[in-house]
Each structure stands twice: as structure tokens, then as C-alpha cells.
């Protein structure tokens, strides 16, 4: 820290004696309209507050602007860390006009997001069960370690590990998670979930 860093706190004052920085603080915090007794009767403060608020409005606009991280590069990095680029697991849905392959990762993401949407779940992780990250079921296509779904009723097995809000019926929460995840995985991927293990790993206050 330099002495200059702290010195400017006590910088210039308006003609009425009020520190400029104090008024800037007020404007930056969006409190320009909340004038104290002195400011209500002081033309210097009123003029300065009006001027600072006008000049500062682009900064307020900037602060209000929604910004989301572009998904591409960060997702690629995460995939590289996971190492799924080499050999992703797939579910295979055989239909009359061809085969649809769904990466196990899709099921994992769907399950995790579904579980996370259930009230009472603070944070959830999910994985498909079985060697290589998936369970094999009878039916069309697939190799050992694949999630396999066929037209004759193939399945996926999922494990959800979650931390729950403290102070609720955890059995009921687990049931709600199972119902929500199974329904959404079925609706979004066409796979039926035959086994859904819910591990409540922790409760958070």
C-alpha cells in the first residue's frame, strides 16, 4: 500500500465543505436521490449529485448488463480434464429408420440437472453405473461398458450423489429426486431408468 492510496480518500471538497468522494460514493451506490438534511438545502451538493449521476449512468448500465461465459472453450477444457474425448460411452436407441447414439455424458448431465431442480437439493452430482461409466442392458447395439437402450426396453442405471438442505425428510427427498430424474431422463433421452441410487452425502445449513 502506498500513502497515495489512502491520501485520496480525503481529497477535494465542494464549496459547501462536503467531500467530493463522499458524493461519488453515494452516486456509485445508486443513492443519489437519498439526500440528507444538508444536501436537501445545499445547491452545491444538489448540482454535484445531478452531474455525477448523469456522468455515472453508463457505469450503472455496464453493471446491469448480463454477461454469460461462452460455453465452447470452457466445456472443451472440462472434457479434456475428464478425458472423455478418447472413448465416450453411448446409449444406442434403435428405431425403424436407423440408430440414435446418446453419449452417457448426456444422461449424466440430464440426471444432475434434474436432481438439482428438486427443492431441498443444494448441489448434486451424477454418474451412470457400471464398468466404463455405464450399465449394459440387453437389446440392440452396444458393447461392454456402454449404456445400451433398445426398442425392447433397454435401460440405464444412474447414481445421484447430493448434498441436501438441513432439516427435512430425506427419504421423501430421495423419492422426489428419483421420480424427477427418471421422468426427465425418459422424456429427454428415451431411455428408461431401471435403477436410480440416491446417495445423500451431506446436509448443509
Amino acid at each position: 500500500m502506498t500513502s497515495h492510496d489512502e491520501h485520496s480518500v480525503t481529497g477535494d471538497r465542494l464549496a459547501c465543505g462536503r467531500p467530493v468522494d463522499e458524493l461519488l460514493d453515494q452516486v456509485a451506490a445508486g443513492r443519489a436521490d437519498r439526500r440528507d438534511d444538508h444536501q436537501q438545502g445545499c445547491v452545491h451538493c444538489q448540482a454535484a449529485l445531478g452531474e455525477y449521476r448523469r456522468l455515472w449512468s453508463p457505469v450503472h448500465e455496464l453493471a446491469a448488463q448480463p454477461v454469460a461465459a461462452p460455453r465452447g472453450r470452457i466445456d472443451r477444457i472440462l472434457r479434456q480434464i475428464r478425458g472423455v474425448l478418447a472413448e465416450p460411452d453411448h446409449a444406442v436407441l434403435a428405431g425403424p429408420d436407423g440408430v440414435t447414439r446418446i453419449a452417457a455424458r448426456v444422461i449424466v448431465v440430464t440426471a444432475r440437472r434434474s436432481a438439482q431442480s428438486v427443492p431441498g437439493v443444494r448441489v448434486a452430482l451424477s454418474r451412470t453405473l457400471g464398468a466404463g461409466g455405464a450399465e449394459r442392458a440387453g437389446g440392440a447395439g452396444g458393447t461392454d461398458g456402454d449404456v445400451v437402450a433398445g426398442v425392447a426396453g433397454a435401460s440405464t442405471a444412474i447414481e445421484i450423489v447430493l448434498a441436501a438442505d438441513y432439516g427435512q425428510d430425506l427419504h421423501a427427498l430421495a423419492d422426489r429426486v428419483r421420480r424427477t430424474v427418471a421422468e426427465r431422463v425418459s422424456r429427454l433421452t428415451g431411455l428408461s431408468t431401471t435403477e436410480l441410487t440416491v446417495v445423500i452425502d451431506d446436509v448443509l445449513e
Partner: protein
Amino acid sequence: MGENDRLDAAADDWLIRKVKDGDVDAYEELVRRHRDRIYRIALRMVGNPHDAEDVAQDVVVSLWTALTGFAGDSLFTTWLYRVVVNRCINLINRRPRFEPLDDPDVTVSPGADLQVEARGHAHAALAAVTALPAELRAPVVLVDIEQMTYQEVAAILNVSEATVRGRLYRARRRLLDTLREWA
């Protein structure tokens, strides 16, 4: 899920414990919860999407290994945003002064046309913020744009609250001068 939930410190701690055990799922979730704010802070510090993405990517890569060294004696977010801000400052200091930026709406030293175009808009503010020296940018970005408290920012920048205030006041005056010139 709202911003408050995403920034839930207890959930972060739970995830960090899992990451330290090598759980990649937990790491992905941790990154997912914070990546927008990582990117947002970087964008407002460095002033253009390309460099902001570089910073965010760099942070995500390094965090995986760095988390094993996170002692947990401060909030995860404090530690994380310190990493982000430091990466940005390193990048800013490495960058030649007045280098033209990729985003046509954002510039470190805007010409008259861009000043006119950006006047009255958030881009003008971003251009003015990124014209500040790096050490003055951080308090403005964290306090005035990200709405963090002086205490949080002091912890992130590893300086006293008085220093944060001093830098912030200097930065605001400079910003105001710049915005006044463009008005």
C-alpha cells in the same frame, strides 16, 4: 437456480472436498457454478471477449491442480476471484499500451468515432474502465460493477479496506473525467 444459490459457500466447500478426492464431476459442477462470474470479471478487467476467454480458460485449467493447495482458510470465492484478478493484471501488464482490442465496440483508447458511438452506453463505461491503470481497475470492477463489499474486495486484493477506498476514489475521479470528456 439463482445467483445466491450458485454462490452458496457451503455447497462450494462440499464440492471442493470431493475435488480434492479427485472427483471430476465435482470439479465440473464447481466450474459451472462460477464460470459466468469468472468470465464477467475478466471481461470487465481486460475489456475484450477474446482475452477474457483466455483468462477464464487459464483459470479453469489451473484451478484443477491448484485446488489441492486451497487451504480453506478463506472463502473459496475470495481465493478464486484473487486468482482471476491476478491473471487479468498479469495479462494487462504484458499487453502493449493502447493495443487495439478485438471487440469493435470496446477500446482502451477510443478514437473520436468510437467515443461518439459508445457515448451514453455501457460500452463507453467499459472503455473508460479499461483505460484505467490495472491497479485502479480492480476496485471499480469489483465494487462498482460486481457490487462486492469493501471487505470482500480487500480480501481478494490482499490489501486493507482503506487502500481499496483510496484506489476506488482515485479510479472514480479518473472515470468521471473520462466520461465527462466524452459527454
